[in-house]
């Protein structure tokens, strides 16, 4: 890899003003593909989910997936877009072996949704409005695997394998207008936009939007212009940036790279760039001049899409609360700081905490478990919080057991560990591991008596008024009961027996 010259971020921003354009592809979570009845399930045997239509066999014809259109309209509405009264699909013609028809059925100058915006919240609470150019429907391509080369890229490969399971999966492409005026915060805006868009898509229920699974992919277009100039500079297009952190890093890297090129009197080449997770750098892809000609024309095999206004209004009424507003409401209800809320969001815990409170747990308890013990476990095992084998109802049950005094915190952690280990629901784990707090007063009383007898010196200190020393006796009782006693009650008993006021 060639070493790229960079200037410092601060120097870059001192001389130049960044302009960004973000293109996000979202794979819809429809059960079937955009133009045929094949399943969209991921990770199936290669080419097992194909038919004459998505293989582009001679004679086969597409039929539009209604749910795909509905999802596109929902996304458009949530992005404050106008919804086309009449629009068509178009063919984007280019050759590539993983594209069965050698044209992609997409939309061109008649997108289903256009002229919208999305307000995103930056880390300090500032709201930045990102203008949306359009959201349009299209189909995904198949997948090429290049075999025999060192890099996995086609260069140097001996042959390629083609899997068409992904061909025809519905995609929505969401394109922003040029994002201007973000200045030094451009990378942060990019990240916040993609994060907010992901939350929005999830809230709409149209896709799981898992970036790590390729269900949401982002291209970052970036250019610099000297301060005070209207005209945009030449842009680069960094393709397939597939995590929130990477979006921010890619934008930052490109700002520094462009500035280095421009400051040394060079010119930016209009090209695609590959992003590298390891070091956050980008390298040149293919030259993308404006002569690239996709020969778009209206798809003659499909009839125009003309969503009835009543239907659009019905969909508008059914839209969920916007994620940003919902978070503001929850922050208020939970009484947490902006910073805490951001952490909860980043951990992907908002919905889980809400679900846990809906199962009856107080919000502080729900937060404590999801952001504490469970977040730690998720981190250690490299899973998302929502991938852990524990349900909000189970977490709520643990919280209820603690509240009732049946478990203390230490025992509760063991219960959760048991649930995560697949030992059953919380009550089963308590039962099997024998984790219940010892609340049998007789047994407890004996244990306390034994502890006092065995630690006479400490007992005397307590009698003499050093109430703080009771902790040592509590510890002894807890040890004797293998942690299953209610520590508060133990303390009460000790003081009672020694005739001291707590």
């Amino acid at each position, binding site marked *: 890899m060639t070493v790229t010259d960079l200037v410092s971020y601060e120097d870059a921003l001192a001389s130049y003003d960044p302009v960004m354009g973000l293109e996000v592809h979202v794979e819809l979570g429809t059960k079937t593909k955009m133009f045929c009845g094949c399943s969209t399930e991921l990770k199936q045997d290669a080419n097992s989910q194909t038919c004459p239509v998505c293989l*582009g066999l001679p004679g086969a014809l597409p039929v539009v997936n209604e749910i795909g259109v509905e999802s596109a309209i929902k996304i458009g509405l949530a992005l404050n877009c106008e919804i086309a009264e009449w629009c068509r699909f178009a063919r984007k013609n280019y050759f590539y072996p993983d594209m069965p028809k050698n044209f992609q059925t997409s939309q061109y100058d008649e997108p289903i949704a256009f002229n919208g915006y999305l307000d995103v919240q930056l880390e300090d609470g500032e709201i930045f409005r990102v203008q949306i150019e359009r959201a349009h429907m299209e189909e995904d391509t198949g997948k090429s695997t290049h075999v025999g080369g060192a890099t996995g890229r086609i260069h140097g490969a001996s042959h390629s394998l083609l899997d068409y399971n992904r061909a025809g999966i519905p995609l929505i492409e969401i394109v922003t207008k040029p994002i201007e005026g973000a200045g030094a915060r451009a990378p942060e805006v990019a990240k916040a936009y993609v994060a907010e868009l992901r939350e929005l898509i999830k809230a709409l229920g149209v896709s799981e939007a898992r970036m790590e699974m390729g269900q949401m992919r982002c291209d970052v277009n970036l250019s610099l212009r000297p301060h005070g100039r209207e005209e945009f500079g030449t842009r680069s297009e960094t393709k397939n940036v597939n995590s929130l952190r990477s979006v921010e890093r890619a934008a930052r890297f490109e700002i520094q790279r462009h500035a280095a090129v421009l400051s040394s009197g060079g010119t930016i080449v209009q090209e695609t760039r590959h992003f590298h997770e390891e070091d956050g750098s980008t390298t040149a892809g293919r030259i993308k001049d404006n002569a690239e000609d996709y020969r778009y024309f209206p798809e003659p095999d499909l009839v125009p899409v003309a969503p009835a206004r009543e239907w659009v209004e019905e969909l508008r009424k059914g839209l969920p609360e916007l994620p940003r507003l919902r978070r503001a409401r929850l922050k208020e209800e939970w009484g947490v700081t902006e910073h805490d809320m951001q952490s909860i969001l980043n951990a992907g815990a908002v919905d889980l905490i809400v679900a846990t409170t809906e199962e009856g747990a107080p919000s502080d308890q729900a937060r404590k478990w999801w952001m504490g013990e469970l977040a730690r476990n998720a981190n250690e095992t490299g899973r998302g919080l929502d991938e852990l084998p524990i349900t909000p109802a189970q977490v709520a049950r643990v919280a209820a057991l603690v509240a009732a005094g049946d478990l203390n915190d230490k025992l509760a952690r063991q219960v959760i560990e048991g649930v995560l280990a697949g030992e059953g629901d919380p009550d089963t784990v308590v039962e099997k591991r024998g984790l219940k707090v010892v609340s049998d007063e007789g047994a407890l009383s004996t244990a306390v008596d034994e502890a006092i007898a065995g630690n006479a010196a400490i007992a005397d200190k307590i009698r003499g008024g050093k109430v703080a020393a009771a902790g040592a006796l509590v510890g002894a009782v807890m040890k004797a009961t293998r942690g299953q006693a209610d520590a508060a009650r133990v303390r009460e008993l000790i003081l009672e027996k020694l005739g001291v006021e707590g």
Partner: protein
Amino acid sequence: MTDISAIIKLTAAEIAGKIASGELTAVEVTEAHLARIDAVDEKVHAFLHIDREGALAQARAVDAKREAGEKLGPLAGVPLALKDIFTTKDMPTTVGSKILEGWVPPYDATLTQKLRAADVVILGKTNMDEFAMGSSTENSAYGPTGNPWDLTRIPGGSGGGSSAALASYEAPLAIGTDTGGSIRQPAAVTGTVGVKPTYGGVSRYGMVAFSSSLDQGGPCARTVLDAALLHEAIAGHDPLDSTSIDAPVPPVVEAARNGSVQGMRVGVVKQFRGEGYQAGVLQRFDESVELLKSLGATVVELDCPSFDLALSAYYLIAPSECSSNLARFDAMRYGLRVGDDGTKSAEDVTALTREAGFGDEVKRRIILGTYALSSGYYDAYYGSAQKVRTLITQDFAKAFEQVDVIVSPTTPTTAFPIGERADDPMAMYLADLCTIPTNLAGNSAMSLPCGLAPEDGLPVGLQIIAPAMKDDRLYKVGAAVEAAFVEKWGHPLLEEAPSL
């Protein structure tokens, strides 16, 4: 009744009647037609593939149904020649191209399924201009087809195999597709009947695309009634084809059984006449107009100025769509693959395959269409052509305010000699002068025989054009004209064809 020469001259309606009554078995009928194919197809070359076993199995199934007392459909046991553009699970589908040589599709076209469901016996697949591009069937990668009236002449195109199969009595029914006249012009030059239904009337699912917005499958036969019976069997809404019309099939069979032009207004368009039209063709056409008057029709002269632009618009729209539709033939998934020796890139293999697999006319149209869609040219070419298309549709709409149907010659000349226009694409394109406006507007039209041109003794076709979804009018008028001509001639026109 086992006399082969008698069986093969029966109409489809007669065959179905005799099978239903037990006078003939479907196997006898099928064997008679297979024997006829054996006897003459070496000369005619109507078929690319003959499915002897499949046809006989289907025929036996029909006979078994009858023996079991099941009710038979109106075309049960009737043999049919299927244009090699519809996918068939049990037969190759080549579209007349080397690029699909030997390809057996994994699925049946909707039309194929409907034929099977109607117990029609599919004899085989017929020859055609490659990808339906042509007016003579000379563009087939598998050699030309002869016109049964004169084997040195073309049988029309692209559906020349289907028209020749009918005219040579190899089959009483055939299927064609019509993008710019590929059903009607072959019918005209072989003295048979062909109908282009309203666009969206017959499903395109499984019909290999040439130009998606123009392509339409339809029935071919020797009589108007037979065409109607076949039309009814293959038409109707198909959820697999978004452009298929979700409405009842026009009552075509009823119309064919009740032919009449009494009180109808018939339009004659002044643009369908002039330079390039053979004298004998115009003579027979004028006689047809007189005949219509004598049968009780009123004739109205029409002016449709945009029709003069139809051919130009067609040769931008059809190639544009074809350049995109044919992009999928890239050697990656099916069909021909050339140069895959382990050293060449996918791009090289695609290029070598297309070079070897596509014929000149197909390449010409792909290049033309690619150019017409290119950025900077799109508005001037594809965009302008779409505007012309709108004007033509408007001209038809205005015309149909004044008349019930329009009539014209189907094609300006009779069958020309094989080779005569092969090196002159423009001359070839003129064969579709009268048929193309209908494809651009999406309405329906029929060609049926109206006599022989005096100068060469070859068949002349009369075209009848009706509004969209008024396909029944074609049959009402067609049946009346056919009956009057047969009465005048004393026999069907095809009886005058020389024996092969």
